[in-house]
């Protein structure tokens, strides 16, 4: 009502707001024209050196110019690499000594985990579907054949790698003090590698796997005390329906339950246990003093003399 009484005042007031808004907008546009390009230019300049961005510095905690400190930090500040020390004895990198077999075995385990997870997308551990899934994988899934091939051959290579690793460790006497315990972990890992391969053998559900696992688990029948055909087994009341083989297969023959059991052992049970043992194994390599050699040779005359410690000093 008051506005109608004083139209000038009303108009004047309105013009005032409009002017303010226009002036403000003009100012903003002016700023857009000058400040933003300047800021953008500055920031684009900054992007030319991405190592200065917050994202980058939050990921990489140190500089990368080639200094001894940065070389060390590159290993120590990386969770995947920090199992390595920053520096090692210059001879320890001689692969004619280690053959690289332990590392290759671990790398094959990673490949097997990767290809194995992909295979799991296409596989049902049931008697009806398992074999068909493998056929489907071989003939219809893009790259399915090479995926299965890689998983199979990497598994065989891993078995060979583990054996050669053990062979090298024995020949270099690397199981001797202070690495006795780690040798034991290694033996367990050898067993689990073979078991991993063995449980995977049944999964295609073909004649090869079926009979190999039948032959393999038939031996469990003969377990002393715990198998129904083993020594003293029948005395203890073992039958084909309650002995250790029944427990392994989930039945008295290799059938649907055996397929499911070996699938679960193969994909979940054993990999978890093996991974834990691997962590211990690698950790102990570090804690036991790193790679065992090539160490300085010891002479027979020094064999029974302590080389370090108070006894060596006291004598």
């Amino acid at each position: 009502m008051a506005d109608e009484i004083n139209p000038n005042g009303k108009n004047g007031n309105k013009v005032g707001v409009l002017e303010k808004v226009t002036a403000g907008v003009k100012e903003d546009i002016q700023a857009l024209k000058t400040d933003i390009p300047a800021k953008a230019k500055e920031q684009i300049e900054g992007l030319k050196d991405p190592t200065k961005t917050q994202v980058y510095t939050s990921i990489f905690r140190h500089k990368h110019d080639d200094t001894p400190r940065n070389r060390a930090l590159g290993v120590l500040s990386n969770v995947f690499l920090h199992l390595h020390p920053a520096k090692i004895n210059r001879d320890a990198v001689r692969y004619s000594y280690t053959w690289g077999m332990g590392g290759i075995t671990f790398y094959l385990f990673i490949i097997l985990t990767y290809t194995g997870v992909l295979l799991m997308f296409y596989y049902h551990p049931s008697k009806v579907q398992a074999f068909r899934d493998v056929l489907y994988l071989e003939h219809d899934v893009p790259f399915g054949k090479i995926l299965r091939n890689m998983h199979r051959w990497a598994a065989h290579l891993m078995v060979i790698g583990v054996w050669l690793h053990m062979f090298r460790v024995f020949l270099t006497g690397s199981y001797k003090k202070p690495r006795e315990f780690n040798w034991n972990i290694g033996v367990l890992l050898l067993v689990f590698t073979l078991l991993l391969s063995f449980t995977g053998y049944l999964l295609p559900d073909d004649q090869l796997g079926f009979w190999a696992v039948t032959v393999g688990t038939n031996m469990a029948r003969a377990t002393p005390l715990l198998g129904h055909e083993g020594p003293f087994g029948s005395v203890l009341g073992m039958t084909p329906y309650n002995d250790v083989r029944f427990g392994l297969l989930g039945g008295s023959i290799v059938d649907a339950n055996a397929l499911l059991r070996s699938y679960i052992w193969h994909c979940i049970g054993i990999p978890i246990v093996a991974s834990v043992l691997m962590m211990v194994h690698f950790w102990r390599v570090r804690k036991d003093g790193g790679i065992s050699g090539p160490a300085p040779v010891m002479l027979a005359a020094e064999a029974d003399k302590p080389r370090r410690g108070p006894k060596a000093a006291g004598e």
Partner: protein
Amino acid sequence: MDWRQLWEICSAPDNVPIVGLIPLLAFYIYLAVKQARANDVLIEQLEGDAALAKTHHRKTWPFKPGWQKEVHVWPFLLRIEFLAAIIVTIILMVWSITLNAPLEEPANPNLTMNPAKAPWYFLGLQEMLVYFDPWIAGVVMPTMIIIGLMVIPYIDTNPLGSGYYTWKQRKFSISTFLFGFVILWVAMIIIGTFIRGPGWQWFWPGQTWDHNRLIYEVNRDLPDIFGITSNIGKGIFGAIMVGGFYLVGGGAVYSLFRRKMPKDFQRMSLLQFSLMAFLWLTMIALPLKMALRLLWHIKYVWITPWFNV
């Protein structure tokens, strides 16, 4: 010579790893022997030269002044690991492109594969089934192998040869391991793969796998040869034979150690020594039992109502 048959066996996809394992193992044995020999020469030199032994000249690749003692893991180790990973990936890719994983007919419990073979890495144990009952070959032996491997660090008291290849300082342990790994494990796998055909019969390489072949073989038990007929007699006889093997064998090992390795014997506790002797004799019993079977057709040595050895 049936070359086609030989090719079929060697090129069966699952046998390819074993075909590959043979040259691979030969190469690594060569590599180890080469380095062991170099170290042995150095050890001999140091033992003859007390002044040199006091210097740092303790490796076949001795440290030279001016060298850094330690190198950075990045890049000197990581580049090797990276290269190794790439090479393994390439090998695996090429192998996977050129050779398909085996896939037979769907599993059929009514159609027995002949020969039905375990996975190749267990064929050594399956070969043992010819000579031993399943409870020994399939259960006791694998357990003994695992336990035997695990106690190695605790019964090998020889402090020499830790961290370098050598033969002269560890003759007994290295020959034992080579025998166990190369002869008893790998060679048995090779026999199980390439020699054993239908019915698990022995076919020489190149001999055609004849599914109808019958071998007329009469296997006898050792007590029968000695004319022992009663069950109690057989049990007692076998116990004496097996026990005698371990007793006489133990004596032989003791005599060997006392004469040839007195220092090692001195270092070992009685428990260590008897454990080592027991495991060693058990390992030796394997080829002995094989010889009894292959040469004299002897099936069992010890027969009881509960188990046979």
